[in-house]
């Protein structure tokens, strides 16, 4: 699907505020509600708009500690990536897992209630994962910017 300038305008408004109703979106973009609805519908059908995500504040749920682990795997084992990610997905405190091209192979987020909870997860679950060569940890101090908005 070809996205034109009016579509991009709609997407910019939606990126700014994901809770806009169709009527609000139409008026901000200067379109009729019908035309707006047809365009959004078309972008949803074409998969340009994939869906809606809720933004969860984990610290309000009692998860005060967030650590990003950067992991290098033992690549002499052919199935290291698959076995590692499969096992890591089973740890409930692990959020997103990403495979990377660069100095590290995997990065993943771990959320814990406090530091002693983190230490327990790290010692008992993370270090037990298969094919780890090295682990590096970055602890979140503060989030300065967090948006999924694309520069459209």
């Amino acid at each position: 699907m070809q996205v034109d300038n009016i579509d991009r305008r709609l997407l910019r408004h939606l990126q700014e505020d994901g809770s806009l109703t169709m009527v609000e979106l139409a008026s901000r973009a200067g379109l009729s509600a019908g035309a707006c609805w047809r365009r959004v519908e078309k972008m949803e059908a074409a998969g340009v708009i994939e869906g809606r995500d809720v933004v969860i504040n984990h610290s309000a749920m009692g998860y005060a500690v967030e650590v990003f682990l950067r992991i290098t795997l033992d690549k002499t084992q052919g199935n290291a990536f698959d076995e590692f990610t499969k096992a890591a997905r089973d740890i409930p405190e692990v959020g997103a897992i990403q495979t990377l091209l660069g100095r590290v192979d995997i990065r993943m987020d771990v959320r814990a209630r406090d530091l002693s909870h983190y230490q327990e997860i790290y010692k008992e679950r993370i270090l037990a994962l298969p094919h780890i060569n090295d682990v590096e940890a970055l602890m979140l101090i503060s989030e300065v910017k967090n948006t999924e908005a694309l520069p459209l």
Partner: protein
Amino acid sequence: MMELDEKDHGIIRALKRDGSLNAAAVGKAVGLTQPSAWRRIRRLEEGGVILGRRVRLNKAALGFEVVVYLGVKLAAKGQVSLEDFERAVCAVPEVQLVQHVLGVYDYRLKVVARDLSDFERILRRRIMTLPGVGEVESNVMLSEIG
């Protein structure tokens, strides 16, 4: 911190799977009526657990093929102001995420780009020129799970 029970956790799980669900669908997923699901969602929003909803766009369909995670060390600690760096890096439209971290790097950034040469342009013109920036490590994202 808010006290959450099993139903609340169920609501959060359902909304994490699909953020477009309305109160009736959420209620159905966790075994609540529409009004009581609606009240609980309201409570989670007012308690700051649910911060809002975000539209999820297909990056590739919009021409953004590359996601890169950067680790940034500031050059001379103490001499550069963190605020100057933070203000400047937040103003870069291709930078989606800026996290101040403790560890081998000072900041973690997530950058979206159209392709690798677009990323090189952003890195050279926008990132390497930030005030106080020192060592930068790039890791290109290949895939994301969960």
